[in-house]
């Protein structure tokens, strides 16, 4: 027990070892059995899961105590960077979520990728992602977090572009990387500015630079050392990192495109774990953010805008993965909203339940897509419940949970709603209610379109293998019951300072009525059996709104037409400057060297006699000079 806690860093290091093993030993593995890659990857994840469960049980039995160990990594002048691990309630919870979800997804990936030529590369990348993600969760200070933050981005880039021969994949990977760069740069700037503001504290009173365990006094020092506007700017820059990573409002455009990657990746990285890293980082930096009320407002409103945006765009998507991607954006917005209004534990609780049910939904979608030979358009699906009952019923569990009808999603959404209500902001409360109704509507829209009614496609339906269906069943369990089990314990387990209790009894009733009403609404639009209204007819009176949603609020067009154009113009001007001024200056120095060489060449081109004469003349001059010096 004790030795496991002392060596918890193994959880992060083992996947790195597996990554190197697969990359360098691919030829030998191929000769024996390709499954070895999967067993290696899933095996170390299982070890990680056991270790994380031990850590979680330690944190539950010893509340408020943390385990932290740091080693000096490098010291530059007065700056001493450490690398280490920190086990507290937050990180042990995240460790369990990441390890359990990724274990199931790795098993699932085996049958999804079985026919692919790049089977080993896929598992190597998965192991690499696990290394980065677990390192991020375990890291004890902000610098280490930043390093792993970038590594997670690299893993995401590699996996989105896994089928790099497809043009769309390669482009989506680039887009994700570039958009994430904006946020990462903000995070880096914010970190440096924060270090600058609170440097005296770190230098005199803490031994780990930017360590999370002493962030609170450091934030107070930083707040005193500058104006409130300056502090807001620093916090906002740091907040940009989570905005990009968690696909929030202005920088959300990369996530839907990231669905070009293999579906298990969409489930693991772009739904359950990596995109939740943004919420995790906000939770880590909460001591800084909470000191600036304006910043908390910015977080809350960013989340609210994103939640509405994601939900409304998800309404009109026909690609099943795109619909789920927008729903992920919307749910992440929900978490940000919760964080912003101070419902710290509610946001993290939603992170946990969302990780399970969204992974479940994506894996179900992956099973459907796989058995329909890569058909992603929901208009060519339908009636699949009879063909693949396990997938349909697990999807239904996920959809109920996601829509907030009784299962886990209901408990966590309810927590968030009551948190918003406790903060007293009625506008945000209404937005959240609206969004949760919309989310129930669009998720049941996908369910009815895919699994009910008549099959509208033309291709054959393959069977779903055991490797696929078992993880679905296992994932359905936490999606169904975690909410009810942990709803009370979680608040006491992970909390930040105050928690304003809300005793509004009608809230669960209101939210459940809204959810069920939305499901009913979805059924009369999209369930063939109960169809009353044709959705095509509704489009006509609301065609402007429809166009607005289909075009994704015109944000992508705005970026393409305006931001990219300005950017390209600026880049063109800068390249002109580079070519005309900087290049020319460098050319000049090169040319002057050449000219000197040419001049020297003139002397050397003559006959031996000239050499001798030159040296004698120089000798005479030199001796004359020396003699005059002596006199």
């Amino acid at each position, binding site marked *: 027990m004790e030795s496991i806690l002392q060596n918890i860093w193994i959880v992060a290091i083992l996947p790195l070892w597996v990554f190197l093993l697969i990359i360098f030993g691919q030829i030998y593995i191929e000769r024996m059995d390709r499954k070895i890659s999967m067993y290696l990857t899933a095996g170390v994840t299982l070890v990680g899961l056991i270790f994380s469960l031990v850590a979680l049980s330690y944190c539950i039995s010893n509340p408020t105590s943390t385990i932290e160990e740091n080693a000096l990594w490098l010291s530059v002048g007065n700056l001493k960077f450490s690398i280490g691990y920190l086990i507290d309630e937050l990180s042990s919870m995240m460790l369990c979520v990441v390890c359990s979800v990724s274990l199931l997804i790795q098993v699932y990936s085996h049958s999804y990728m079985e026919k692919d030529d790049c089977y080993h590369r896929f598992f190597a990348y998965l192991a690499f992602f696990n290394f980065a993600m677990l390192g991020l969760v375990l890291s004890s200070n902000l610098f280490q977090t930043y390093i792993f933050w970038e590594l997670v981005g690299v893993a995401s880039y590699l996996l989105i572009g896994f089928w790099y021969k497809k043009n769309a994949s390669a482009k989506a990977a680039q887009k994700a990387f570039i958009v994430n760069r904006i946020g990462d740069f903000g995070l880096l700037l914010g970190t440096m500015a924060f270090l600058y503001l609170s440097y005296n504290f770190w230098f005199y009173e803490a031994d780990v630079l930017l360590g999370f365990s002493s962030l609170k006094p450091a934030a107070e020092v930083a707040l005193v050392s500058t104006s409130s506007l300056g502090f807001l700017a620093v916090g906002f820059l740091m907040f940009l990192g989570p905005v990009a990573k968690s696909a929030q409002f202005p920088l959300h455009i990369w996530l839907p495109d990231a669905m070009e990657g293999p579906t298990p990746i969409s489930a693991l990285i772009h739904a359950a774990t990596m995109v939740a890293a943004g919420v995790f980082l906000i939770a880590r930096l909460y001591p800084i953010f909470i000191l600036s009320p304006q910043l908390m407002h910015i977080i809350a409103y960013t989340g609210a805008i994103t939640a509405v945006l994601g939900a409304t765009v998800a309404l009109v998507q026909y690609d099943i993965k795109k619909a789920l991607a927008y729903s992920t954006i919307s749910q992440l917005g929900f978490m940000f909203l919760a964080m912003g209004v101070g419902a710290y534990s509610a946001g993290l609780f939603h992170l946990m339940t969302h990780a399970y049910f969204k992974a479940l939904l994506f894996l179900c979608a992956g099973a459907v897509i796989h058995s329909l030979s890569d058909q992603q358009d929901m208009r060519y699906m339908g009636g699949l419940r009879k063909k693949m009952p396990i997938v349909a019923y697990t999807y239904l569990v996920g959809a109920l949970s996601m829509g907030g009808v009784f299962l886990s999603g209901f408990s966590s959404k309810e927590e968030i709603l009551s948190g918003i209500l406790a903060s007293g902001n009625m506008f945000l409360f209404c937005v959240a209610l609206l969004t949760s109704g919309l989310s129930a509507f669009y998720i049941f829209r996908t369910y009815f379109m895919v699994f009910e009614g008549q099959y509208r496609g033309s291709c054959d339906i393959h069977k779903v293998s055991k490797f696929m269906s078992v993880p679905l069943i296992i994932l359905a369990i936490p999606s169904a019951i975690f909410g009810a089990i942990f709803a009370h314990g979680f608040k006491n387990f992970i909390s930040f300072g105050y928690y304003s209790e809300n005793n509004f009894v009608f809230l669960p009733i209101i939210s459940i009525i809204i959810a069920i009403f939305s499901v009913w609404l979805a059924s009369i639009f999209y369930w063939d059996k109960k169809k009353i209204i044709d959705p095509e007819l509704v489009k006509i009176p609301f065609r402007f709104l429809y166009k607005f949603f289909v075009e994704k609020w015109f944000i992508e067009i705005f970026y393409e037409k305006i931001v990219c154009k300005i950017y390209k113009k600026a880049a063109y001007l800068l390249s002109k400057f580079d070519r005309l001024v900087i290049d020319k200056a460098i050319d000049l120095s090169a040319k002057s060297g050449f000219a000197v060489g040419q001049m020297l060449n003139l002397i*050397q081109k003559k*006959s*031996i*006699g*000239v050499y*001798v*004469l030159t040296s*004698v003349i120089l000798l005479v001059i030199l001796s004359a000079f020396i003699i005059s010096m002596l006199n």
Partner: protein
Amino acid sequence: MFEVGLIHYILLSTALFCIGLLSVIISKHLIRVLIGVEFMLNAVNINLIAFSNYLDLAKLDGNLLALFVMAIGVCELALGLAILILIFRRTQSVNADEQNSFRG
């Protein structure tokens, strides 16, 4: 009465040195160049002995050194001639300006 002094020896050696230098600089033939070098060497030798005779009467250091210089001069000449013969075998020419194979 014409008195021979140190200055005359120096003038003689300077004249010899300049003749040798001129020969080295302007002649095309490699053997003339070698002869010019020998001229310069001997001019230096005369200079050495003259100074030794006029300024260092008791000791014979300078005279002894002149013998060494002559021996080294012979060695140098032998080496130079050997190199010259090799050059001639290789290029079939003793023209100094044509020996440009070392030029970069």
